Every structure is written in C-alpha cells, then in structure tokens.
C-alpha cells in the first residue's frame, strides 16, 4: 500500500485537530480553565455556517466570520454567567457547568437546526487536487492554511505583543498581575471568548469535509484533550506538533489497521503515557 496519500490525508486531519485545540491550549495555560462545551461550540460554528449559507444565502467565506462572531458571543455569555465560579477557581463546578452548557447547546441546536445530517456547501469542497499519488481537496488546503495562520498568529500575539505579555503574565501568576495594573478577570473573559471563537472557526473550516449532525461534539472534546495534554499543557508549539502527529497516526491507523478504532487507539496511547509518565500531566 502507498503511504503518501495517507500522510497527506493525515496532515489535513491533523491540521484540523490542531485548529480545534488552539483555543483550549491558550485557555488552559492562561486561565487554567477547561471547557467541556468546546465540542458543542465547534458543532455550533459548523451549523451557523451552514445556516448562513443555506438559509441566508451568504457565501461561504462570509459565513465563516458570522459563525465566529455568533459563537464568540455565546462564549462571552457563558463566561459572564460563570464569573463567580471562575473567580473562586472552583474547577470542579466549572467542569460540570461547561458540560451542562454543552448539553444545553446540543439540545438547542437540534431544535433550531433539526436532527438531519447537513452538508456545508463550501466551494472548496469539490475541487480535487493531486500531489503525486495523493488526492485532496482545496478544503483540506484551507484547513491547513487556517491552522498554520492561527498558530502563527497566536504565537506572535503571545510572544510579541502587549496583549500576549499580559496573558502570559496572568497565566504565570494572576495575583502578581494585579500589581502590574492588570485586571486578571478581564483577561480570563478575553481568553475564554478567544477559545470559543477558535472552536467556531474550526467548525466552519473543518466541518465541510463531512456531513454534520447536532450530536457531534463528544469526540471533539476528547481529541482536543489529547492534543492539549500530549502537547504539554499550555504549549502552543506542542499542540501544533501533536495535532499534526495525531492526524497522521489516525490516518495511518485507519488505513492499515481499523478506521473505526483510530480515535480509540490514539486515546489508548494516551492512557499508556499516563501510566508511564504521570508527571507529564501535572498542570502547572
């Protein structure tokens, strides 16, 4: 069998995983928050895109920012509702609340968008390209470009700008940040909204690859978790590398072993790492 097509497929898949995880990585490192509704925000991003195209007649590229803004606003509302728990750093309740929000969003989305599989009509979906023996679509290229741009952008913002310095400062020591004149609560809100928006972007860009259902989201949270944790919690570059690596692993495993079990296999790898190197999973 030829490996090259699988590698290309894996890169596209992995770019998607990485794109999905970028928001969580920042969220986790800066605010030490996790958002179990991340997968549902991804789903919502996909469905808002679909809705904008099919019902409002907006072109695909214009539908993406609409989805991002809508989901960012929902993320903002979530975070504002959770303010008290965030300030208390009540991690357990936050986990449960976001899980509950995810379920709420799923139910809400199903009643608005219906329970049928839908297809996002992206113009890039049908255009096949070839590279040697590998075939892929322009959509795959778009995913890779989006992932690389997001990571490069996030990396530059975090390392080169005032905003980035503030976020890194709050990540390291929110108490000390106060003495630098920084309001950490505002930073938390900003980071959460960024994470929500990036999940929506991932949904809008990745979802056209296959039909979407309002029940997707469960698996996305697991994948995001894998990428973020294996990449070294809070490491931007780590997440990109692991995301791509995970995509290639899943593609190869799917092609040569069993497609149905590829995500489970990736998770099994994590479990092994967890048993062998528990220290790697300490958060800060």
């Amino acid at each position, binding site marked *: 069998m030829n490996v090259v097509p699988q590698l290309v497929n894996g890169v596209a898949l992995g770019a998607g995983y990485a794109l999905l995880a970028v928001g969580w990585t920042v969220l986790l490192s800066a605010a030490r928050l996790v958002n179990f509704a991340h997968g549902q925000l991804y789903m919502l991003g996909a469905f808002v895109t679909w809705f904008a195209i099919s019902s409002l007649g907006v072109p695909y590229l214009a539908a993406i920012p609409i989805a991002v803004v809508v989901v960012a606003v929902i993320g903002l509302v979530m975070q504002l509702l959770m303010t008290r728990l965030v300030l208390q750093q009540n991690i357990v309740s936050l986990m449960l609340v976001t899980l509950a929000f995810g379920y709420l969003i799923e139910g809400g989305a199903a009643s608005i968008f219906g329970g049928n599989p839908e297809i996002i009509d992206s113009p890039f979906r049908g255009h096949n390209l070839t590279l040697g023996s590998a075939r892929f679509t322009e959509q795959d290229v778009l995913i890779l470009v989006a992932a690389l741009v997001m990571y490069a952008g996030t990396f530059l913002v975090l390392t080169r700008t*005032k905003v980035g*310095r*503030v976020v*890194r*400062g709050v*990540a*390291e*020591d929110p*108490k*000390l*940040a*106060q*003495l*630098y*004149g*920084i*309001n950490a609560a505002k930073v938390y809100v900003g980071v959460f909204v960024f994470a929500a928006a990036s999940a929506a972007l991932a949904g809008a860009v990745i979802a056209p690859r296959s039909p979407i259902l309002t029940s997707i989201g469960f698996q996305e949270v697991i994948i995001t978790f894998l990428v973020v944790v294996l990449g070294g919690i809070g490491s931007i570059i780590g997440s990109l590398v692991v995301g791509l690596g995970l995509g290639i692993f899943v593609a190869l495993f799917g092609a040569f072993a069993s497609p149905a079990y590829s995500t489970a296999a990736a998770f099994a790898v994590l479990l092994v790492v967890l048993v062998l190197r528990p220290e790697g999973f300490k958060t800060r």
Partner: protein
Amino acid sequence: MSALLEVSDLRVRYGHSTALDGVDLTVGEGELVAVAGANGAGKSTLVNAVAGWSRGRATATGAVRLDGRELAGMAPHRRTKHGIVLVPEGKGVFEQLTVEDNLRLVQPPKNAVGKRYEIEDIYEVFPQLPDRSSARCSTLSGGERQMVAVGRALRAAPRLLILDEPSVGLAPRLVLTVLRHVRDLVRGGLSVLLVEQNVKATLEVADRLYLLERGRVAGSGTASEMRGDERIAAAYLGGLTG
C-alpha cells in the same frame, strides 16, 4: 496634615485570625518609613493591605488615604494607577517573561503625578540590567530579580513605593547596597514604605520606623530615637528575662 499616606485603624483578618489589630501609620512626602517586627507580627499584612493586595484571603477594614483620597475597597490594579505601587515579598516578577517584557508590561500612566521612568531610565538606575534585557527572569539571580521588580514598580510612576523585604535571599553584604539604592530614590523625591528584616541596616537609611508586635504598633519614632530601643531586640527574640 501634609502626610502623603495616612493609614488609620487598619484591621485585617484571615478568616478567624486577626493579623492586624488597629494600626495607624503615616508616610510623608519624600520620606522613607520602615516597618520592623518579628515574623508574624503583621508587617507584610500591613503593607499588602495598603496596596489592597493579598495572596491569601484577607478582609481589611479601616481607612487608607493617599493625599487625602480614600482608597479603601479599591482593587489593587486600580491603586497602582493611583500611585501606590507594591513590590511584594518573594516573587515580584514574572519569571517566564524576559526582563524587558516585565518592564514593558507596565506603562507609565498618562497623567502620572510621580516621576515617569522610560525603559532607558530604569536601565540607568540599574546598570546591570541592560545586558540581561532579553533573558528570562527565571535565569536571573535573586538580586537581579529584585532590581527588575523595583524597576517594574518605578515604571508605574509611583508616588508611594512599597518594598516588602527587598533584601530577602541576598548576601548580607548586598543588603546595604540595596537599601542605599532605595535611599537614593527617596532623595529623588519618592516616598517609600519599607519592610526589612535587617533592622540595623534599615535604621541606617530610614527616616522613621514603626515597630509592630502581634498586629499592633508597639513603638515608633525617628531612626535615631529607635536605634537604641531595647524593645526591638525583645520583639525579635522574646523577653531576655523569660
């Protein structure tokens, strides 16, 4: 009347335990005031409460006025903008950020009352820092970190600079160097509230000193008055008769 900082009847509690039990204190314009006392006497609690800051869960009551303006209830990041700038004990810099990033994180307020320090000015005050400007603070020595912490504080154009144990972790010989530096800043017109473990060295540079014992002011006076005060030794090591 002309005191820059006026603290009256300051009380701080952590849960059920009382850390400060009604403290009155003033710092005048261009004055270096020191706070001394044994461990657990409430020195850090006092200066943190002035800055409105706490790593734990403190509840404070009482009045804190800067130039007659009541600051009680104000969040620490807002007090910073009003000119009260604290360099906390221990970790005063972001270790994952470079020296320059730490300094750049703070921009002098536009309508700053205190003296404005550009990055270059900080480097002038601490000539050792320019060479390390792109080094992560986690790689710096304790003394260098302290310089960055003070430099950061100066960037905020403080009217009142609060230093909590600036010499912790420094070799004894360096302590006086640090304190003389502080004295120079005061000579430049800054007001400083200083907590320092090394009482004898502190008395060399301070104008006035407050002695805390179990959350209360046990004594206060000018440095020369306090120099021979035996209450100081007793506060640190217990009554010699006991």
